[in-house]
């Protein structure tokens, strides 16, 4: 234990990195279409081992000081994307359901409908028009695929997340951890979650209603994991 041991210290995504076999189109998509500035790049001759190709590692600013990065390896053979599904990094056969292929994607946040629609306008005028615009639950999103086949979502919140949704998320995850394993099901999760609701929801509500100075300890008690305050 030290002064930091119970603190949530990270401040966002430094960078998330993907390979590309088409750096020109990648730059057209992220810099020229979406308008994400190039903020860093590394030109490297190999990387130690003899079989490591020369490469360019380049970064786009995605706001909030977070960055989206790509690796372009000189001379590396592009995978065959003429059949099957997926992107240049992960390929799947034709039988793989689309919902599974799309489950791994990058979602970028905007603050308003006006900002979402501005990105829609930029994409629709490009080689990569918006494929879907969907309002679901408390968010609205647009989706397309970048030149590498990676699914990109731009999303906005329709309302702020409420404190009870943070409690609910923690109860869901505690229930999931409890029931996970062979034969796990939504039914088993909902039964376990009901037990956790009975055990913890009233106590959480009392802590919410308590004067501010009395809150921290009771909030911590209401959850076995960290809860956003």
């Amino acid at each position: 234990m030290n002064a930091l041991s119970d603190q949530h210290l990270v401040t966002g995504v430094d960078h998330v990195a993907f390979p590309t076999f088409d750096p020109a189109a990648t730059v057209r998509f992220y810099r020229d279409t979406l308008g994400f500035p190039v903020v860093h790049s590394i030109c490297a001759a190999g990387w130690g081992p003899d079989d490591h190709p020369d490469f360019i590692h380049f970064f786009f600013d995605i706001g909030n000081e977070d960055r989206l990065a790509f690796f372009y390896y000189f001379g590396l053979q592009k995978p065959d994307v003429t059949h099957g599904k997926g992107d240049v990094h992960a390929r799947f056969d034709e039988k793989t359901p689309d919902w599974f292929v799309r489950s791994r994607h990058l979602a970028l946040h905007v603050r308003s409908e006006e900002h979402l629609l501005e990105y829609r306008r930029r994409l629709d005028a490009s080689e990569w028009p918006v494929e879907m615009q969907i309002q679901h639950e408390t968010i609205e999103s647009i989706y397309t695929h970048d030149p590498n086949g990676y699914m990109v979502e731009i999303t906005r919140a329709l309302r702020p997340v409420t404190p009870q949704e943070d409690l609910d998320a923690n109860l869901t995850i505690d229930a999931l951890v409890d029931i996970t394993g062979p034969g796990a099901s939504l039914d088993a999760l909902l039964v376990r979650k009901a037990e956790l609701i009975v055990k913890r929801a009233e106590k959480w509500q009392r802590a919410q209603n308590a004067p501010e100075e009395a809150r921290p300890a009771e909030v911590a008690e209401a959850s076995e994991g960290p809860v956003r305050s």
Partner: protein
Amino acid sequence: MTSRLFVLDVPENSGVIDVARGLPGVRVGKTGPYFVVESDAPISIDRRATGMRHAVWYSCVAGLEGWRIAAWNKDALRTEPR
């Protein structure tokens, strides 16, 4: 035997609670930030009557006590004894 279904109190879930309140033999209470829909007999909630769209509809149940879900489709959510 009395069984219970829990629904988080957020604006998107108000439709299912409004319909549950109108069902015969169904009581709707509260525990913390959750609505508790309680009945001695299984319940059936008509989705169209709730006015809920599909994404919210299929994620509105937070917990089950005594019941299992017998059917949960675009038309209705129906419970049965466990």
